[in-house]
């Protein structure tokens, strides 16, 4: 049949053009304008790669990868100084991102928003304006967080005064700002509670009322020594606790299973000879946990104390109930961040910022499964967001 060539120097193709007979089944005329949707049921090995694009910071990105196939499922544009996506533990077919935009990309009027995207179409469902105070950091997962009931998102602000912007994601409404003087970042700690870490070794808990306003704040004192064995600014959620490794290789637990945040005594992840050999925590997100397996994954490398954020070369795995190291996984390439999927056949992801590669391993077998190349400009953080509803397990002690 004749070619449908329109007038004008380019071929104007109407959406929904009629069927064609171009011979056989392999050569059917294609429909113009098709756009893919994601399956409504995400698989447990779907993993987000967050990319701050540090050499071109207005061009933040995130990329969704199917870890089982290495296929890229979709991407997002996430603006200036992007950190990470925020996923509610209670799924609502959408996810959240605190984003900053400038009217002239690197100058002009600043707009901070929480963008709410549809989990199937990746389209923007809504934008919630924020005060233009969002912290710009080398990305951390906990630059923002959502309460365990999925209702309120908290965005870490630094102007350099520190505070949290609270957003009611259900009502698509900015609720208000709550100061967190001396403290930074934000970790979910229950249905309506969040905590931040403080420069003086404390944690500050912020509890919200049902309308998102401040219910109360309290401090947990003397958790760690910021001038000594300080903890990482990134931790692993494990049931109703957060686990933080420290400079000297100890594990600090902040438990909120009782409804009140408390610090449990730290215990060593490293044997004395490992400490002497310089094994140390690593990267921007250097720990992950698997709830049902009660396992901690710890990204390590060998280096002086000042290298505590350098890329990690191995992942050491611990059984938390018995505080035993159970296996080591040597990485194909040094990684800046790791993540572990929540299912019973868990996958370990490790992202290399220098090569823009995502390396995927069997978390139990330690076997390298595949490498996904071209996952960003300067990819920084990983997220397997489709975890199960958190079990009410008590943390190990």
């Amino acid at each position, binding site marked *: *049949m*004749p*070619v*449908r*060539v*329109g*007038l*004008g*120097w*380019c*071929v*104007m*193709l*109407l*959406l929904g053009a009629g069927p*064609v*007979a*171009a*011979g*056989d089944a*392999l*050569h*059917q*005329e*294609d*429909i*113009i*304008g*098709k*756009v*893919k*949707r*994601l399956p409504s049921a995400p698989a447990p090995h779907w993993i987000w790669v967050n990319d701050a694009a540090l*050499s071109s910071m207005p*061009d933040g*990105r995130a990329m*969704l990868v199917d870890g089982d196939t290495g296929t*890229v*499922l*979709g*991407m*997002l*544009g996430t603006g200036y100084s992007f950190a990470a996506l925020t996923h509610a533990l209670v799924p609502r077919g959408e996810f959240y991102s605190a984003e900053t935009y400038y009217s002239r990309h690197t100058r002009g009027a600043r707009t901070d928003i929480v963008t709410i*995207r549809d989990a*199937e*179409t*990746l*389209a923007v469902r809504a934008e919630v304006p924020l005060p233009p105070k969002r912290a710009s950091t080398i990305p951390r997962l906990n630059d923002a967080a959502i309460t365990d009931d999925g209702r309120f998102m908290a965005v870490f602000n630094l102007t350099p005064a520190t505070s949290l912007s609270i957003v009611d994601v259900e009502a698509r409404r900015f609720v208000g700002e709550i100061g967190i003087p001396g403290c930074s970042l934000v970790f979910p700690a229950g249905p309506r509670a969040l905590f931040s870490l403080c420069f003086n070794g404390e944690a500050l808990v912020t509890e919200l009322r049902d309308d998102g306003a401040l219910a109360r704040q309290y401090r947990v004192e003397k958790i760690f020594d910021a001038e000594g064995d300080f903890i990482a600014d990134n931790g692993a959620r494990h049931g109703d606790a957060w686990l933080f490794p420290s400079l000297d290789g100890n594990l600090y637990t902040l438990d909120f299973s009782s409804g009140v945040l408390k610090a449990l005594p730290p215990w060593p992840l490293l044997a004395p000879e490992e400490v002497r050999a310089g094994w140390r925590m690593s990267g921007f997100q250097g720990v992950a946990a698997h709830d049902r397996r009660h396992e901690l994954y710890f990204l390590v490398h060998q280096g002086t104390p000042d290298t505590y954020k350098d890329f990690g070369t191995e992942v050491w795995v611990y059984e938390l109930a018995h505080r035993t190291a159970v296996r080591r996984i040597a990485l194909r390439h040094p990684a800046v961040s790791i993540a572990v999927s929540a299912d019973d056949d868990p996958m370990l992801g490790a992202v290399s910022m220098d*090569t*823009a*590669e995502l390396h995927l391993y069997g978390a139990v077998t330690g076997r390298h499964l595949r*490498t996904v*190349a*071209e996952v*960003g*400009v*300067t990819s920084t953080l990983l997220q397997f967001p489709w975890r199960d509803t958190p079990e009410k397990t008590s943390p190990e002690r």
Partner: protein
Amino acid sequence: MNRFDRWFAHASRHVARHTSRRSFLTLLGASLAGVSGFPVLPVARAAEQRGSAAADPVQDPNHCEYWRNCGMDGFLCGCCGGSSTSCPPGTEMAKTTWIGTCRDPSDGRDYIIAYNDCCGMSTCNRCMCGRHEGDRPIYYPAKSNNVNWCASASTNVYHCTTTLLLGLSEPEPP
């Protein structure tokens, strides 16, 4: 139809039958993948890996050697969350496009392929593919790979490119 419209209509038909389109971003791909081996934006390595996906790369839509890619420009949408005939989630398919004529070696016939760009998201930066026949300078947009075809979408932000089959390049015998 004034003289310019006639010229352009002629050009489109001519183009469809006799040329293919070279990559909008070919030199970008070359520059990013070329000299330093494996730079920040690694375009070369992924292509290698994908080589094993199909026994014959000429029939593998995510491979630059895929027959429909004879006039491909830019990033293959199948590597970006879409497919060779659909755009990734959250993007929009451009309505105007460059078209090329590609021969499928499996039947030896020539087909018209439209290289519709997917728009509205920053460059995919995966699976760069540039083929080089018949390109013309920018003053000849219908034949130029250095024009961003997202000009016809609701935003002109280029993300990746599909390969849609429009039909045989010549009428079927009666």
